[in-house]
């Protein structure tokens, strides 16, 4: 097990290096200039821009810049943003709590909705409940978040005037009032994201459970005299969860990097909105760090998913 773990960790190093190399090259070759606004401003002499480019090392050849970036990254220095001149790590840390809260809650909400509904649908396939659940699940994942987000804003903020549609990370209130304000502003983005993810996961859980529920060992469990509830929870769900775990594990890195569109619509100051504004202003160090962290998380959670399989299914062994 530990040998397997070590081997997997070692494999990730060249993988991450490869990913970073591709990301860096693509970003370096992409059109655009971080000092674009200076270029169109007649009041700024071109020398200032040239000066900044040299100061920030933008005029060096791409391989030199890449090696510099990698060595700094290994030392834990993520560089600084061209636009705000703040360290990238500071920027990310400022945004991370909000993103974790909004997307983490949404993910939880999605699971809480998906698991019971998916399992129940599978236990009684083609029942009225299953039909309704299926319909809603299809609607749920067919409607993109920007559509449901705007519909929610239209309904709850503009027509009904119940909820604010601009998310503010730090609310000037304490105690219950803070909780109330926070809940009011977070409910729309969380619901939009949670239901979107929940819809897809519901379908997934349903089909995974359906695959398992017809197997012989389930009949054996029933004939042993186990209650239906016991059979489903202990025998069916546990085995059906394996593919679901893969899906959920691969969704978790997304919790860290945010949801670009939803964050933009509700002005949630999370990592997704940081990423999009960095892309728009050609702020390469920020784009590079976020995408690289995302890549690293995907690799990490793949590994975690593999390890969880072993716990869920003892037949899987690591060599």
């Amino acid at each position, binding site marked *: 097990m530990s040998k397997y773990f070590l081997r997997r960790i070692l494999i990730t190093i060249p993988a991450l290096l490869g990913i970073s190399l591709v990301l860096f090259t693509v970003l370096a070759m992409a*059109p*655009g*200039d971080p*000092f*674009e*606004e*200076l*270029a*169109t*401003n*007649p*009041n*700024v*002499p*071109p*020398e*200032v*821009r040239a*000066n*900044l480019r040299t*100061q920030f090392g933008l005029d060096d050849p791409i391989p030199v810049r890449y090696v510099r970036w990698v060595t700094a990254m290994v030392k834990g220095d993520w560089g*600084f*943003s061209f*636009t*705000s*001149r*703040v360290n990238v790590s500071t*920027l990310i840390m*400022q*945004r991370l709590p909000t993103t974790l809260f909004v997307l983490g809650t949404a993910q939880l909400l999605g699971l809480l909705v998906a698991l019971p509904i998916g399992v129940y649908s599978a236990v009684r396939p083609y029942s009225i409940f299953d039909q309704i659940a299926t319909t809603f699940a299809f609607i749920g994942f067919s409607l993109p978040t920007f559509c449901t987000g705007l519909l929610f*804003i239209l309904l709850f*903020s*503009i027509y009904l*005037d119940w909820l*604010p*549609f*601009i998310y*503010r*990370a*730090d609310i*000037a209130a304490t105690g219950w009032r803070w909780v109330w304000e926070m809940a009011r502003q977070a409910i729309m983005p969380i619901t939009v994201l949670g239901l979107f993810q929940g819809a897809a996961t519901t379908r997934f859980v349903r089909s995974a459970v359906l695959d398992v529920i017809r197997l012989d060992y389930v009949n054996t469990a029933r004939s042993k005299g186990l209650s239906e509830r016991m059979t489903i929870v202990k025998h069916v769900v546990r085995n059906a969860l394996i593919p679901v775990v893969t899906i959920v594990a691969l969704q978790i890195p997304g919790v860290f990097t945010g949801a670009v569109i939803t964050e*933009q*619509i509700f*002005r949630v*100051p999370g990592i997704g*909105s*940081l990423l999009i*504004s960095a892309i*728009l*202003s*050609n702020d390469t160090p920020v784009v590079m760090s976020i995408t690289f962290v995302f890549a690293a998380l995907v690799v990490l959670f793949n590994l975690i998913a593999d390890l969880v399989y072993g716990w869920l299914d003892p037949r899987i062994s690591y060599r």
Partner: protein
Amino acid sequence: MDEHKLRDLIAEVKAGHLSRRGFVQVMVGLGLTAPLAAQMLASAGVAQAQSKLMYKATKRGGGGAVKTLWWQGPTLLNPHFAVGTKDQDGSRIFYEPLASWDPDGNLVANLAAEIPSVQNGGVSKDGKSVTWKLKKGVQWHDGKPFTADDVVFNWEYASDPATASVTIGSYKDIKAQKIDSHTVKVTFEKPTPFWADAFVGVRGMLIPKHLFEAFKGAKSREAPTNLKPVGTGPYRFVDFKPGDMVKGELNPTYHMPNRPYFDTIEMKGGGDAASAARAVIQTGEFDYAWNLQVEDEILKRMEQGGKGKADIVAGGNIEHIQLNNTDPWTEVDGERSSIKTKHPFLLDPAVRQALNLIVDRGAVQEQIYGRTGIATANFLNEPKRFASKATKWELNADKASQILEAAGWKKGSDGIRAKDGKKLKMVYSTSINALRQKTQQVVKQVAAKVGIDMEIKGVTASVYFSSDVGNPDTYTKFYTDIQMYTTTMTQPDPELFMNQFTSWEVASKENKWQGRNITRWKSEEYDKLYRAAETELDPVKRATLFIKMNELVIQNVVVIPVVFRPRVAAIANTMRVEQSGWDSDFWNLHNWYREG
């Protein structure tokens, strides 16, 4: 319009026959800036007008929170590094200049005790120096006194190339010198007619010497105060998250009595312009939203909700079409649109006149821009405008056809005019933006009627406006026949704005396309006028020179102006705010208050 007529107009203002505002409007119509117009009036001894916003609050604080919304959040709070207006605005909450520009182009004192003038001896007669008297008893937010040392330091800081400040253009050719603790003398290398640039407006915000002294030059990035501003402004720094939020609280030692009104201020960033407008006008979640590039129709629909309104104020931005003087389709020495080439047909005055006649500005204003774009014939308008105040532009497809016909451009079997084997086919490019694509369609339709074939091209804004030397689609390369975008005249003085038609500014490979003359139009006469304006000290004579330059540009159809684009902000109905087209949105923040 010659100097004589201009002087007559000024006399009329002096005698009270023409309002100050009317005069300023006329000058703006002539392609000048409001500050320059105000300078003319001041030189003629016409008294400064009072700002129209009356501050009615009678005590400091007690106004609660004011919440403002910028759809692009500020990313840094050092005014000397403020790249876009968002950063300048964010800094302006905490920092102040010596003086600001009001909507009519008057200078209003902030940290200056009075506005220098020739009359009060502040401005020297030879135009080579200006002496600023500073307000006494002003404190930085950390309690240290504000003195002449701070002002001189800002000059040293910004003019040092190693600092790489974006304000360097305003400071590199001046010298600031301390006379006494509250007097600073600014000297210029050569006679400078427009002296109110350094220490004024968005590029004049002053940072404290005691906190930035150690971070001058190459270390400028490391200053902790870059992110935690300590200024003299009406609000003190509380919190800053780049791109997301700036927070401030009332400054109890602010140097103006009974100000500010609000206890806290919040500047939230992110999102898009339309929903920002919605949050102020329709739902009232926020009190102020900046720079609403939203179609007027949408704004009007929101305004029916009634919690706020769109506030529109004139500035110097003009959406215009540029005609290429060089050949974009032939490569010479590794560049297209090289100054060594000539455009195959756009140099023909008949074609230029015809193009000027087929731009339907009326339709563009009515159907596309509404209140947010006012049809304009010219960077400059005819003198008749003074009487009628009506913009004079013409949409006349028949006349355009006649002109082309007379010049020998005959329609071929495909309906496209041609002469000597050259067809009137052109590529019309602009950045991708719903309003611009609609405008392109309007122009293209009329052009087709006249027998000019236009191919429409849209380039992503981030590429089009970039200075990427490797990309052929940037606006400075101008590798198409005609192109359209908005030039922004943010400078209160037109001199910099007008250098975009001088021959030494032609954009080329040699200067990495950083030259400002994008159309590559060259005129000896224009160059001469420009050189004269650079040193002309009499504001009226100088204005006449600028007007003549404008005339040349328009007569030769170097560019075809389409619409003026005023500044649009959304303001809650209860808020009392005065916008200025010549300064930051927060130029008058200390006077903001709420009523009812």
